[in-house]
């Protein structure tokens, strides 16, 4: 029996896949890898209220790997921030649901992303502002592992440690693949944990598809006082769909009808 969170994540995977298939574009591989993390955040960890998306005391989530916006849209819809009917407008003319998330259009989106390496510096600013206000809310930011090649991230990592931002959690979606190849064959940053530790962060490594592990690592009880926290989530690009899993071809490839049927069948097979 899958847990409630796993069931929600499974629904989100199916809805995400359908949306990419129907739109004829999207970043399905990185969406499948991040969906468990997003599900745990929005359905267990984050203190957010769809009725009041601008509640000043809400927790903040920045999806820095903005190319996987569709996964976030589906999660926001499931959580009630936007109507579920709206998901099918993804990438369509006049839709709010563009290829990358837009803060001024979609309730629940905290900042625009799309250019990699933007989210973490902004999250540092949010966490710093919370400290300034002595507010209790937390800031979470999700980056891709390839994205961590951007130097701006490492500038932000230094700043967060210097500021002692223990209200900030960085989740690295470590699926070992980037746009065109493996990190290993591109610019191999891994392992991440010792690097973040060397920069003064508290680091935890988890299986990024294990709901219990995700929830435990993100829980406020595991915050280390005075240190920003990094969760290195070991994931699979294309998780849940056998022929996409760990396959770089699926960064932004769109399934044909046969592949779509097979992928749906596989996801339905693990639905409950």
């Amino acid at each position, binding site marked *: 029996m899958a847990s409630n969170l796993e069931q929600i994540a499974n629904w989100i995977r199916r809805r995400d896949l359908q949306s990419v298939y129907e739109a004829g*574009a999207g970043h399905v591989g990185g969406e499948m890898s991040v969906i468990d993390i997003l599900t745990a955040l929005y359905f267990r960890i984050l203190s957010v209220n769809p009725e009041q998306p601008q509640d000043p005391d809400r927790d903040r989530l920045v999806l820095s790997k903005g190319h996987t916006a569709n996964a976030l849209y589906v999660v926001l819809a499931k959580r009630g921030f936007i109507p579920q009917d709206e998901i099918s407008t993804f*990438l369509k003319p006049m839709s709010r649901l*563009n290829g990358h998330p837009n803060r001024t259009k979609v309730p629940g989106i905290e900042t625009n992303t799309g*250019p990699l390496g933007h989210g973490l510096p902004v999250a540092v600013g949010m966490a710093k502002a919370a400290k300034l206000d002595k507010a209790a809310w937390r800031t979470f930011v999700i980056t891709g592992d*390839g994205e961590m090649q*951007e130097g701006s991230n490492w500038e932000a990592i230094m700043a967060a440690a210097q500021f002692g931002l223990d209200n900030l959690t960085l989740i690295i979606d470590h699926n070992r693949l980037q746009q065109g190849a493996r990190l290993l064959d*591109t610019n191999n940053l891994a392992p991440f944990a010792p690097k973040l530790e060397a920069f003064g962060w508290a680091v935890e490594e988890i299986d990024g598809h294990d709901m219990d592990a995700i929830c435990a690592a993100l829980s406020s009880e595991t915050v280390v006082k005075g240190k920003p926290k990094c969760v290195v989530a070991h994931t699979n690009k294309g998780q849940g769909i056998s022929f996409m899993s760990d396959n770089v071809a699926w960064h*932004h490839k769109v399934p044909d009808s046969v592949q779509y049927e097979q992928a749906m069948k596989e996801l339905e097979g693990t639905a409950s």
Partner: protein
Amino acid sequence: MSGSLHLGDFTSAANVYGAGGMPRYYGDALVASAASDPRVVALGADLSAPTETDVIRDAMPDRFFMVGIQEANLIGVASGMAKMGDIPFANSFSVFLTRRCYDQIAMQVAYPKANVKLAGFLPGLSTLLGVSHQAIDDIALMRALPNMTIIEPGGPDQIVPAVKAAIEIDGPVYLRLQRADRPLQKDQTLPPFELGKAQTLKDGADVAIVASGLMIGQARQAATKLSKRGISTAVVNLHTIKPLDRNAITQWARRCQLIVTAENHSIIGGLGSAVAEVLAEENAGARLVRVGLKDRFAEGGSLPYLLQKYRMSADAIVEAVVEAS
């Protein structure tokens, strides 16, 4: 409208994976250049397939270097190699290649006249991916830099001469490139161009549409429609945006009452601004209308949809001419 959603977008499967026999003008030109000139190397920041550099990566692995997703470093490395005598082509999407690392380009490429070629893709509104990926100010940025040459081929088949021209220049060049998303039709082909010389694609006496890049296609359609209405319309391919062919622009302005600039870019700082500067300084007489993105961010959408919405389509050019005449 949804049927045309994939047009010109790098996410279309055929485009990314080289399937369907799509011509790879840039990728092939780069390999040909590297084969004939040992100084030519290519640098990537991920995005090998969308910038067609997988061609050189696979054909000449010792001449292709991947730095990772780090455009600022890409520019620095390219500058260093150029200063040692190589001719590096730095590749990414236009928006990340220019806006993201402007200071590096200004101080390590333009100022020292480093022999770096910047090859940027997804010009202007040519992507579904939205504002973060739409280069609407890249020409403005590059134009403001001393020593920079800017070439935007009028069509994919002008990419080959553009790469050649870039190598012949001993200094920084920005190539603004759009990949072919289908085999070219006969009426879409263009003659090769001469660097720095505006290219007349169609003669006319009343109106001259000065365009670059994918707006050439819109301009040609508009000219046909206008000619049918009795308005004799010229189409000029301004493939070299810097240095600008001031002479040609002045002459067109003396000959025609109306100059229309058509650019897949903000109307601020790009081709329209460049032409406006010449018209004002030369006191050339013709009226000017600028077609382009009017000082706003756009959104994700198919190219035909966006061109229509932001009044940049052939029909919008026709309307602009009719309103101004």
